[in-house]
């Protein structure tokens, strides 16, 4: 969920950015200020531009019961003003200085960023440091912004059958853990959030020791250090950060199926998601084996899915597999396919199951592993061209309990994965009891 719509939703950026490779050898420096704020610097001197980001280790999964959506509402309200910069001056100042800005909220973190010419870095640091501690809200600014968020929900979720289905799939996936509620919040709860709810969340989580500063671009680590100490250094932690202990999922004992009919659906689609551990809980080799499994099953035209579903059996022109474990507590392994006109969901699902069963029982080949590994490394190399994506890669890792070394050693770890590792990943992951299948169909049936 973002302040406004301009960039790709963060989930796609993260999926596209599986990780960087040794061929790139990213130049990254990290240090911590005396108040506990972590700083990461990624120099890129190609243009006189910097990307400045502050990530808070607080997201929707950190909300109190009944306050679904408050993390994201606060993200919007952070632009409303402080005594030093009241009435939406933040955006006006950034713009008058030729800057781009936005913000986004996920289950585990909330991030704010600006892209500016390098000489404006002190200015955006001053603004961002100011609103970390001095946010001032009134009902006059909160209520219209809450209405904006309700419109955002209507636009992204309620107007989109696939958005509604995904929300229901998450709710079905998590029995106890808060990942089951949407980041943007449920309509009945969001529409009742108050100024005080937002201020409570702000007071509990927005502290220097709960924040990560990332600066990428035309700067040196020394320059950033001097500026960070000047602007963020004086901020004091006001209270201890609440421990992030969320309810653990009970053992998954039954597979779930969510079917939705909607007259706005043009053609049927099918997907399944499996619950997995999160990156920080997995040894690097196991984690990368899962990424490679997704690539082998559903990445590109050489994958098992495409070869069978699109080419040999002509059942589904679109299909794929993905793995995203860049969250604090759980990850997801997903597969999907859209039946060709005239093909039934049942026919596609049966074939998908046959392919998955074949992978589990017979395993993958060395040739598949090598090809998929090459594809992943190539994608990572192209990431080097994007300052913004590199900055996000480190932000996501650090905000979800991973380390800079986890990111930097990505290619070294990837090289160690064997066929046995991938086969083990397939046997562990593809457990139907830990899955939710989602089916979206045209026609009446509720809404």
């Amino acid at each position: 969920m973002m302040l406004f719509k301009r960039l790709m939703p963060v989930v796609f950026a993260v999926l596209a950015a599986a990780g960087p490779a040794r061929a790139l050898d990213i130049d990254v420096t990290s240090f911590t200020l005396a108040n506990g704020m972590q700083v990461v610097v990624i120099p890129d001197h190609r243009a006189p531009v910097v990307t400045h980001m502050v990530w808070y280790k607080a997201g929707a999964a950190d909300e109190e019961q009944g306050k679904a959506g408050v993390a994201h509402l606060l993200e919007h309200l952070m632009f409303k003003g402080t005594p030093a910069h009241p009435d939406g001056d933040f955006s006006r100042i950034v713009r008058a200085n030729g800057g781009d800005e936005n913000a986004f909220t996920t289950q585990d973190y909330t991030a704010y960023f600006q892209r500016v010419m390098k000489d404006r870095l002190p200015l955006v640091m001053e603004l961002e440091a100011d609103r970390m501690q001095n946010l001032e809200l009134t009902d006059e600014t909160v209520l219209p912004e809450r209405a904006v968020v309700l419109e955002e929900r209507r636009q992204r979720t309620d107007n989109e059958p696939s958005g509604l289905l995904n929300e229901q799939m998450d709710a079905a996936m998590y029995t106890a853990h808060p990942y089951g509620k949407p980041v943007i919040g449920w309509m009945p709860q969001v529409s009742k959030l108050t100024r005080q709810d937002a201020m409570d969340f702000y007071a509990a989580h927005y502290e220097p020791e709960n924040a990560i500063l990332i600066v990428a671009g035309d700067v040196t680590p020394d320059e950033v250090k001097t500026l960070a100490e000047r602007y963020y250094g004086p901020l004091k932690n006001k209270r201890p950060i609440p421990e992030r202990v969320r309810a653990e999922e009970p053992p998954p004992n039954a597979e779930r199926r969510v079917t939705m009919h909607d007259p706005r659906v043009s053609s049927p689609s099918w997907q399944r998601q499996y619950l997995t551990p999160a990156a920080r809980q997995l040894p690097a080799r196991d984690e990368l084996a899962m990424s490679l499994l997704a690539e082998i099953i559903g990445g590109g035209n050489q994958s098992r899915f495409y070869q069978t579903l699109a080419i040999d059996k002509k059942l589904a022109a679109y299909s794929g597999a993905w793995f995203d474990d860049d969250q604090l507590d759980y990850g997801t392994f997903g597969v999907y396919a859209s039946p060709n006109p005239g093909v039934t969901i049942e026919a596609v699902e049966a074939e998908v199951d046959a392919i998955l069963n074949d992978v589990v029982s017979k395993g993958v080949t060395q040739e598949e592993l090598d090809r998929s590994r090459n594809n992943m490394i190539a994608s990572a190399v192209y990431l080097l061209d994007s300052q913004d994506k590199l900055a996000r890669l480190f932000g996501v890792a650090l905000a979800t309990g991973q380390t800079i070394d986890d990111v930097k050693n990505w290619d070294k770890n990837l090289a160690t994965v064997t066929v046995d590792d991938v086969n083990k990943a397939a046997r562990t992951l593809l457990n139907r009891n830990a899955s939710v299948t989602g089916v979206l169909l045209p026609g009446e049936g509720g809404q």
Partner: protein
Amino acid sequence: MPKPLHTLLLVVGLFFASAASANAFTIQEVTSPGGIKAWLVEEHAIPLMAMNYSFRGGTEYDPPAKEGVSEFLTGMMDEGAGDMLSAEFQKKRDALAFRMSFDAGSDFFEGSFQTLSRNRDASADLLKLAITSPRFDAEPLERVRQQFLLNVKDKDQDPESLAWQAWMEDILPGDPYSRRDEGTEASIGAITADDLHAAHRRIFNRDTLQVAVVGDISAKELGPLLDKVFGDLPAKAPEQAQLPAAKPAMGPKLQVIKRDMPQSVIVFGTEAIERDDPDFIPAYVMSEILGSGSLTSRLSEEIREKRGLTYGVSYGLNPMTRLGLYAGVLQTKNATAGEALDLAREVMKKYAEDGPTQKELDDAKTFLTGSYALRFSSNSAIANQLLGLQQQNLGIDYVQKRNAMVNAVTLDQVKAQAKRLLHPDRLIVTVVGKPEGVK
């Protein structure tokens, strides 16, 4: 003029000066031994190269009953070429790890190519094969047809696509611009390999080729690469009648497409100016203040910030080759559709009458000039910008002159453009949803 024997260079240096830095990048105009021109920015910091290129004549030239053939072509370019069948081509491409994609716009058909430095020559060989002799075999053709049929069905239901499509049909009835770029179920169902060959022959020609290259390659190396990739394309496109200037309809007009959903999508706008209009820059500054995508525009301030009626509202100039349009979109719950649209009209009316304040103009200038460098912060972004400048005939020194042109815009000029281009009384409006109170 004698045929150049060596790669020719024209060099223009560009400087983004700011208080703390004066970094520069240089655009070189490279002419290959074979006479193919490209704009090049060398950037050796990372071992990658990006090349964006385009040909004139996009979807607007799709033959009647074959709408969507240009887009179909974009999906067939990596499905086999020369003696290589689809699977073999794709295996080789993946082994070399290069990226190749195509996009069919209304006026231009664009290609983009990214390669690792170490595989550059082998990747370029494959790109050349793909764009010179694509195969269009029956198996991939039928497979890709299924994908495009799903696309068409998807667009039929997507509220924003529906609203824009209906709006285009209202403002440009009968013009090729207002046909569906992705085609219809009937037209996609009817496309044959011969149609694809004809579209390929029509589009891929050296006479309308424009190229921008950014990355780890020197001017000396680029010349032969251009000849390798593009040298065997035909010199000229087949003769075909030029399309006449597009004739926009005049509003007011309101069309409501009923759909059962909680939010209405409202598209609204009028005709406007083309990129070569002498007052384009003042008009652009004018439109930035009224309806840029940011939170600080006048429309956003009134409709989003003050009243919370929408997640986003924008209104912007869209200069195309045969006419310009000035249009925007907002989404709001059905109950406030009329209120939000009326507000948009009111904001436009007041702005047309009074224009911006001096402060608004000054802020817009500092934003537009200060943020220009942000458009050039990656290889692929620079390549994209440089190709756009060539398509618009703006000249290799435009990047250098652009901020001065923006700074020279006066308040009177902006006021004149607001009066000239804003017509809230005769908007063409299309709404998808169950709107209340729209008129």
